[in-house]
């Protein structure tokens, strides 16, 4: 999969699946927003924002908004940001993945790496879009 061009896409956007992933009082972003599900190989992100209350670009049933991260900042953490494979049946021009996070960790050391990456990604994320006005 080709690397996402950080110059062309300086920011990437991560969907907020759970309301509590952003703390209303402090604005802090939860590390839970950056953990892989069991079947995932990378964290799904959008290369361009632009969701509205009626349109979820990530096509999710439940989405409370988006966090924004600098693409270069993600790479500086030792992770890769890659575009969809153009030959994949579910290819999307606007979709990319953050990869390099251990998948299905089984040892405490792997779990620690997962937590470290999730903490670091949360620390460089900020709220970008608040779909239902839950965070203001």
């Amino acid at each position, binding site marked *: 999969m080709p690397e996402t061009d950080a110059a062309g896409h300086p920011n990437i956007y991560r969907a907020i699946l759970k309301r*509590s992933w952003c703390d209303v009082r402090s604005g802090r972003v939860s590390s839970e927003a950056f953990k892989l599900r069991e079947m995932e190989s990378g964290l799904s992100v959008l290369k361009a924002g632009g969701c509205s209350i009626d349109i979820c670009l990530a096509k999710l049933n439940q989405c409370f908004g988006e966090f924004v991260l600098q693409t270069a900042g993600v790479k500086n953490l030792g992770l890769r940001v890659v575009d969809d494979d153009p030959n994949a049946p579910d290819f999307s021009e606007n979709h990319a993945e953050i990869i390099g996070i251990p998948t299905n960790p089984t040892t405490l050391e792997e*779990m620690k790496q997962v937590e470290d990456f999730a903490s670091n990604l949360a620390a460089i994320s900020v709220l970008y879009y608040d779909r239902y006005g839950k965070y203001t």
Partner: protein
Amino acid sequence: MANLLVEPETTVFADLRALWEEEKDSDTPITPRAFSTAMALLDYVVRVLGDMPRPWLVPSSEGGITIEWLRDDRTVRVVIPPTDDQVDYIYERVGRESDIKPLSESSVVQSLRSLILMP
């Protein structure tokens, strides 16, 4: 006559119940296993430590719960997965240094005392 001395439910338990209710209709509700483990842990911590800083309760995308205490650049994070076949653990972080250990009630109290409640 109404009993005006009834104490309100301790905030942290009310927070956990509210999160449980809020997530009930989501695609991935909190599992009974994660909820009861979190409730038992918080009950133990409150009984041992009494007043404690209010934790940040966060649902995972798969039905688990994370309980997190923060102070300055210090974090104590308890991760409770949705199912029994996954491992509960405590993740500690001070600045950029981190550590992880299997979850036990006494370890959580120890971590809170050394990282969050210290003077």
